[in-house]
């Protein structure tokens, strides 16, 4: 609990996923006093913890939709701000690959859709041209097209950087702070939280997999139901990243963008995600057989993958709903905005969604003045190939050998108002234990260094 009485803010953002982090940043830049309320012990504990990390152009989004507009706006703003925030950008570009005549027949419609979405830079390619671009590709590609603007980014540092800029410009982050109830008194919202009452003139719900439940707290009844859709991935060790130049996309279906093969900004190669509906919202359990199929599928696309080792397996949950679209609710009178069901494009669209949110709310808050000279704190760029801390003296030694994470980097990630509170949070900020040995070498050093500093310590406490 945070002292007595109720602290009041211009705006409360519920949820520190990528959408909430981006919204908090935008509102703080607009001059609002913002609090971010996150149920989990650390940020990025929901849908945002496991995705493909592609900065989409929105070429295959429903044309004219809010989703398409937000992806486009988000893509543009990311390119403008990433360097100032220290964030990486891998301009890989994507190839949409048709492996059969049937799929090839669907390419023209997809290219038309891309153009309708304002993605004019696409280039149709013959099978031979594709093989020339991607020599490791299995034979059998019939045709395809290139989408040069599909890029790869860091899925965790990105929202972290957004939130960090929000905090540097006056916002607050309250973690382990589930919102459990809400009451509108005609002027402000009274929120019940795990850390005591909070007052807010406006509320943005960015609660991801719990978006429907949270919306119901504010509106009495949610306008949608979350239908979690799991995506499992297999990540290969670094040498495999050299097998591809582009993000390899299949021809998408109505339900899913399909299985992607691409490198990551950390220098690995990933194959995934699946699209599996499930009931549970909390866990995304992996399945041995499915992971095996992903591996086989990866080898069918890139035969050389057969000689490469798996580094990690993971799964994420998309906050999808019963309809294939974002579910946005705006109550201008009571200043409640629900950013619901940001299903499979939220990493790309977050900055666009944040602008949309700020426009809606700022229209009701004539007093807000955009910060004339906002702070631009940088996060460490931990992508492969970036100048890294281990290259500078005074780093205190390497702690995680596979990912070359230094003691100084880990110390820094544990510090400050956005310091990691969980081991998972520490991994997302630094990549410790995320390499090929998965903790064989560094668990000991990490257990020592984090002792007493994590909400869920690596060792047992007491008896």
């Amino acid at each position, binding site marked *: 609990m945070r002292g007595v009485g109720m602290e009041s803010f211009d705006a409360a953002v519920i949820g520190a996923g990528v959408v909430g982090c981006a919204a908090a940043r935008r509102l703080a830049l607009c001059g609002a006093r913002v609090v971010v309320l996150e149920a989990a012990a650390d940020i990025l504990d929901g849908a945002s913890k496991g995705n493909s990390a592609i900065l989409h152009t929105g070429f295959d989004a429903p044309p004219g939709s809010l989703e398409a507009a937000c992806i486009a706006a988000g893509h543009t703003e990311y390119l403008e701000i990433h360097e100032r925030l220290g964030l990486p950008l891998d301009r890989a570009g994507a190839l949409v690959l048709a492996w059969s005549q049937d799929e090839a027949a669907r390419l023209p419609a997809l290219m038309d859709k891309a153009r309708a979405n304002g993605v004019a830079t696409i280039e149709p390619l013959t099978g031979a041209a594709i093989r020339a671009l991607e020599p490791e590709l299995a034979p059998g590609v019939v045709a395809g097209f290139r989408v040069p603007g599909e890029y790869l980014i860091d899925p965790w540092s990105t929202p972290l950087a957004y939130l960090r800029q929000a905090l540097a410009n006056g916002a607050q982050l309250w973690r382990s702070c589930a919102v459990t109830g809400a009451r509108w008194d005609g002027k402000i919202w009274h929120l019940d939280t795990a850390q005591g009452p909070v007052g807010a003139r406006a509320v943005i719900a960015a609660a991801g997999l719990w978006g429907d439940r949270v919306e119901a707290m504010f509106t009495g009844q949610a306008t949608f139901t979350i239908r979690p859709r799991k995506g499992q991935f297999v990540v290969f060790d670094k040498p495999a990243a050299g097998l591809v130049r582009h993000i390899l996309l299949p021809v998408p279906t109505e339900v899913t963008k399909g299985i992607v093969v691409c490198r990551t900004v950390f220098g690995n190669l990933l194959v995934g995600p699946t699209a599996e509906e499930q009931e549970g919202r909390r866990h995304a359990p992996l399945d041995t057989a499915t992971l095996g199929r992903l591996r086989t599928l990866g080898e069918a696309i890139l035969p050389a993958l057969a000689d490469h080792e798996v580094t990690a397996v993971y799964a994420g949950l998309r906050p999808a709903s019963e309809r294939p679209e974002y579910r946005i609710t705006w109550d201008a009178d009571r200043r409640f905005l629900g950013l619901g069901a940001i299903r499979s494009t939220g990493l790309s669209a977050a900055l666009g969604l944040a602008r949309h949110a700020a426009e809606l709310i700022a229209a009701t808050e004539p007093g807000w003045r955009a910060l004339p000279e906002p702070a631009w704190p940088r996060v460490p760029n931990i992508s492969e190939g970036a100048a890294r801390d281990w290259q500078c003296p005074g780093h205190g030694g*390497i702690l995680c050998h596979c990912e070359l994470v230094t003691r100084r980097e880990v110390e820094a990630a544990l510090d400050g108002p956005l310091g990691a509170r969980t081991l998972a949070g520490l991994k997302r900020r630094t990549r410790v234990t995320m390499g090929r040995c998965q903790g064989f*070498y560094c668990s000991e050093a990490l257990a020592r260094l984090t002792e007493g500093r994590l909400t869920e310590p*690596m060792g047992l406490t007491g008896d």
Partner: protein
Amino acid sequence: MTDAPRPPAASGPAVVETADVVIVGAGPAGLSAAVTLRRMGVERVVVLDREATPGGIPRHCAHPPYGLREFGWIMTGPTYARRLVAAARAAGAEIRAATTVTALRPGPAVEVTSDAGRATIRARAVLLATGVRESTRAQRLIGGTRPGGVLSTGALQGMVHLAGVLPFRRPAILGSEMVAFSALMTCRAHDIRPVAMIEPGARTVARWPAALLPRALGIPLMLNTTVAAIEGGARVEGLCVQTPRGPRRLAADGLIVSGGFRPEGALLPGSHLTRDPGTGGPEVDPHGRLSDPAFFAAGNLLHPVETAGWCWNEGRRVARSIVLGLRGALPLPAPDPAGGRIALRGPLAYVTPRRICAPGDAALDRLILRMARPARGRLSLRVDGHEIAGSTLDARPERRLFLPLPPAGHGAVEVVFDEDGGDTG
């Protein structure tokens, strides 16, 4: 909130040092090589290890038996590690801990980083002795959630022996190689009571007498069983196992994923050196020499996995090759790398040394083989199709097999495992 320190743009290290021989890895193999090199008159021998304390894996294996062959009596891993380090220092080798090798370069040279910053060390020869690690839960594609408390034996031992942290109290142990018994002993010493030892195969991998241990300790041994899924949020809450009699749930608060060794060969893919796809380590000839003859390798990096004593002995022998190499007295490597390599046929995982070279007094004095799966049949070494050595076997992947070194320059060399009709065990 302070900004992260900003490193300079990536470029090679500015500091350049020199040594006669650089050894990467201060485990049993690297340290015994250091002693031998010094005794044979090599001036500057520098052993680099990325851990804060040198000694390699034995540092955290706080149980016997180590050291019988090397020091004449049985001791625990940490004592053994300290003895090896002391011996190398006494022999005049320089040991630098907390120094990570980040790249191997022709020359030969290695690039390192430590708290002092980056440096390049040029040498006349480089010995790689970076050891092995266990394979992970991810590599085995084990399903379920991803809670804390799923550890390799190495991680468990590091946590309990070196950091004094208990990750769980009632884990299951997956695997039954020797290292699983190392895990079992670690658990016993810390009042951790394993709920089961789970082995996917039909029998324990480790031989008698270790295999009797679980029963003696009252720990159920579950054969023909796999871990289908791990359950739990922050910590393991249970395990779904697939037994011959169907699925079962085990109440456990952790999982030790033991064994499945693979070489720590991470420096190879970014280098100019050839990898052996079978072992995953470097490709070597019988002198322990790599595709660039200024580089050598010894210890478990070459063969997942042998005992510490084996690695220690191999370090000594390869050190003698290095000295011969420095004097220009080693037989020349086979000129054509493709032709100078042993071909494999049948369910063989690896054969090492893979490169053919006139053996002379070879450091690696025989071929070590492992099967990819259990099989029955005839194993033979053939030169131009003629068997020059062989035996009929019921072979299992966990047992090492041997063949004599092939002669050089007499024709195409093959190691073949011909399976008996149909029955693959």
